[in-house]
């Protein structure tokens, strides 16, 4: 297993955002994590990337509430749940965050370079940059532009490109479809599929179930802070209870 999440529970003060969540991602998978708003999908990715623990350290001694994190997270067989985010990144696990979050005052090229911060081999950086430009040609034509002025879709491409520059083994993408037009969305998902086909394992968080299932190899459904179902898109769509309770789809579409 490339990533194993074992019995992870996260509480912000008294609010339980993740309740005994376990999941596994195998090398080469394109795993989708779906579920309604507030189910804990983003929190799970943030926990995996080390940001929840980092936030907890920052809060220490302040009046902001306590955060507790329990459980184990293993990446490539080694525990990473106590590592700071930058060391987790160094091991090849990268987060492409919710709301894209480019470094707004930096140019497109500088954003991509920031992704390559840990890569020492200049040739490797140049190669990856070419790969990213080939994947998203619009980034090449806007390389000098300040990233804050890009459109939403371009910012999402930049965020994914920046994550790719880190040379990840596992790419976690949080809600890439947010605020994008359907056409842009479809294009983007085709690109995500291309990325997965190059051998990078992808963990995709998405609210649009059909879109997610259209490219994923396997899925988890998260609801009310728990994992409630797991399986391929086909299996999950066949399950009437899952359809009705968690996917918000009509009871039967003849599937």
């Amino acid at each position, binding site marked *: 297993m490339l990533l194993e999440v074992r019995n992870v529970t996260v509480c912000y003060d008294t609010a339980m955002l993740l309740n005994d969540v376990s999941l596994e991602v195998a090398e080469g998978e394109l795993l989708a994590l779906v579920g309604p708003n507030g189910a804990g999908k983003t929190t799970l990715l943030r926990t995996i990337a080390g940001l929840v623990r*980092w936030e907890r350290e920052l809060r220490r001694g*302040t009046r902001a509430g306590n955060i507790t994190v329990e459980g184990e997270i293993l990446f490539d067989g080694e525990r990473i749940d106590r590592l700071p985010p930058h060391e987790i*990144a160094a091991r090849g696990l990268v*987060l492409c*965050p919710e709301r894209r979050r480019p470094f*707004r*005052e930096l140019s497109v090229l500088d954003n991509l370079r920031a992704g390559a*911060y840990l890569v020492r081999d200049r040739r490797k950086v140049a190669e990856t940059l070419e790969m990213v430009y080939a994947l998203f040609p619009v980034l090449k034509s806007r390389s000098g532009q300040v990233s804050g002025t890009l459109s939403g879709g371009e910012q999402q491409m930049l965020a994914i490109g920046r994550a790719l520059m880190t040379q990840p083994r596992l790419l976690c993408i949080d809600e890439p479809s947010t605020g994008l037009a359907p056409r842009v969305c479809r294009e983007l998902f085709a690109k995500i599929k291309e990325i997965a086909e190059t051998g990078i394992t992808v963990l995709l968080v998405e609210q649009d179930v059909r879109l997610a299932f259209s490219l994923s190899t396997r899925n988890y459904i998260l609801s009310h802070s728990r994992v409630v179902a797991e399986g391929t898109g086909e299996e999950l769509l066949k399950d009437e209870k899952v359809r009705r309770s968690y996917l918000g789809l009509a009871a039967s579409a003849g599937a």
Partner: protein
Amino acid sequence: MVGDILVNTLINTGVYAMLAVGFSLMFGVARLINLAHTAFYMLAGYSIFFFITRMGLPWLPSVLLSILIVVVVAVVSYKALIDPMRERETTVLILTIALALVLQEVMLILFGGYFRSVPSALSGYSTILGVRVTNQYLLTLGVVAVTLVAVWLLLMRTKLGLAIRATAQDREIANVMGMCDSRTATVTVAIAAALAGVAGAVVAPLYILEPRIWLPPLTIVLAIAVLGGLGSLKGSLLGAVIIALSESLVVFLVPQGSFFKGAFSLGVMILVLLIRPEGLYGVAFEEER
């Protein structure tokens, strides 16, 4: 005389820029509003005074030693006092004021409350385009210009600079990209202190030195940071130019203008806060969640 005024304005611009860039970077990267920032500038002034007049060292080694002292004092006090408290904003503010006051009192004890002056490194004057300018002013201007260019190259052309700029934009995502935020913060404090050190060391021969000289530039730096947008590099540079130029205009054109210097920059600050609180380039603060 006209030349000196012109060069003086340029020097002020550069000095304000050096102070404001450091102040702004520290806020952006370390989330630190360092009210002791100009106390480092004062410390550099006293160090160079000490090395030149008491130890009899030449100008250049004195400047370098002063910068070194300032950087060491800044990094040690950051690591020992501020970093452990860094998410408690009010505590940090009070701590930095305390640090400034401690430095002020130490200078008072060591050197007394007298007006001190640092001898010029160069004497005489040069004539440029028919305008007479003292050599000391030219030297200062040169050092200021070289320092600013060096910092600009460091920030824009190196990996360290990229990490500093990225962290200033989004600390969390910079971490996710593999940049260690606490290391970047410490380096930023060192760079900011070095800038304040250069500023203090080079202007010391132009002005009078006394233990309270850190206060007036602090209000100016705050005004520049607010005007440019706290945390923005471009903003602090542009803010420094605007404040320094308009300050010179006020001083030279308005009768008794020099009395309005402080009031002018504070006035700008109040206006900006009323009209556009995020400043010229400030980002409306996005919640880091």
